[in-house]
């Protein structure tokens, strides 16, 4: 027996509402993040991730309210990302009920943030999120939601993040994201071989076999997806059953 592969649905939230329009049948308000989170919990999600898209200073109070609302109703690990710039932001989110925070662009602009946050709150609650795009044999890191290219190599940056104290790496393949053509398994395999902390794979899920392959070939510890779960194209339970058939431990 070993650890279960984690399935993590991601809620993309803007201004306190779930975007990407979900169409769950029996929930009253599909745009309410807490309702959606509760539904995912009931379906067997192992964690909930909430990404505040275009989180800005003005919207921070809305984000906090949303985090509080989810945390008071859903009792599984809960990660919040989007616009986290300072230790104060981390502190506020953790106090509001997040169990982990996911930091992306700010970690590149200010790597000390990962180190300081990890020292203060523990590595287990610091997730380093990376957006990467393949360039020949390697992968480049992008910031600001994939808008700006950096000179950083994704594998090297992930290793640096681990050294700085990140407890997990959430790697999104920009080449695969939104394509539904499968995960970038080479990227995840490379990552897993180079890291001693868990790797969460994101981007490219379209079919059941894609998710299974990300674990089997990419050696991912956890899978994160938004749209396939939002639109009920594939249920969390089906993903777990498929993984179980392949001999992987899952929480069913």
């Amino acid at each position, binding site marked *: 027996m070993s650890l279960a592969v984690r399935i993590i649905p991601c809620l993309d939230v803007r201004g306190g509402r779930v975007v990407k329009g979900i169409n769950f049948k029996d929930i009253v308000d599909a745009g309410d993040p807490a309702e959606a989170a509760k539904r995912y919990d009931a379906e067997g999600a192992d964690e909930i991730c909430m990404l505040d898209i275009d989180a800005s200073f003005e919207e921070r109070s809305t984000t906090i309210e949303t985090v509080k609302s989810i945390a008071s109703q859903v*009792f599984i690990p809960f990660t919040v990302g989007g616009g986290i710039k300072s230790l104060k932001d981390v502190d506020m989110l953790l106090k509001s*009920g997040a169990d982990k925070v996911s930091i992306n662009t700010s970690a590149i602009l200010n790597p000390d943030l990962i180190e300081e946050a990890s020292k203060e709150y523990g590595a*287990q609650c610091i997730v380093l999120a990376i957006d990467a795009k393949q360039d020949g044999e390697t992968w480049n890191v992008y910031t600001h939601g994939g808008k700006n290219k950096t000179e950083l190599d994704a594998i090297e940056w992930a290793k640096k993040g681990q050294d700085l104290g990140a407890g997990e790496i959430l790697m999104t393949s920009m080449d695969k994201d939104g394509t539904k053509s499968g995960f970038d398994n080479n990227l995840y395999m490379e990552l897993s071989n180079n890291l001693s902390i868990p790797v969460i794979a994101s981007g490219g899920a379209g079919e059941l076999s894609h998710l299974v392959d990300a674990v089997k070939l990419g050696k991912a510890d956890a899978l994160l997806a938004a749209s396939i779960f939002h639109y009920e194209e594939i249920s969390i339970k089906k993903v777990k059953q498929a993984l179980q058939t392949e001999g992987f431990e899952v929480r069913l």
Partner: protein
Amino acid sequence: MHLGVVDYGASNIHSVARALESLGPKVSIVDTPDKFKSVDKLVFPGQGSMGSCVKKLKETEMFNPLLEAIKSKPFLGICLGLQILFNSSEESTEKGLGVINGSITKIKDLNKENLKIPHMGWNNVKIEKKHELFSGIEDKQFFYFVHSFVAANAETGITTTHYGEKFISSLATENIFATQFHPEKSGEIGLKFLENFINWKI
């Protein structure tokens, strides 16, 4: 029923308090020595290292009141709240509360599986001995764990879990129950466990 959740200033106690509140009872934060007296049951969630936890408890003058309360009230220790019950830990030179004999050790990768440490995620909990706090919970259910150190040997073990080695995932003695897993983050089953603690009669 009035539950107290101990806050020594270093752990995220809010998720525990929120999970307990969702089940109905009055929940208060115990962050000063005088507050131990007013609660019926005590929950001690812990995060971080044993050394810093013990130091903080001493700084806030809560070490002795906590020890007193543990001897007299139904007590639930979570994660570091289990480890601190022991005499000592490999993690620190600071002594624990010493309520349970034995020591806490770093997780051993006995089969050289290249285990990732900390042990973080959902793992099976095998019930070794019957206990009220597991009533209505089936054997080998998944609970959520985040830790690097374990109680590898304790006669008081109620459940065991396997990660690199077999370790004690929960234990009990008289009015004390402690879990290495986080019931407050273990979904429905975790809530059932907490409900059992709220209803626990000694």
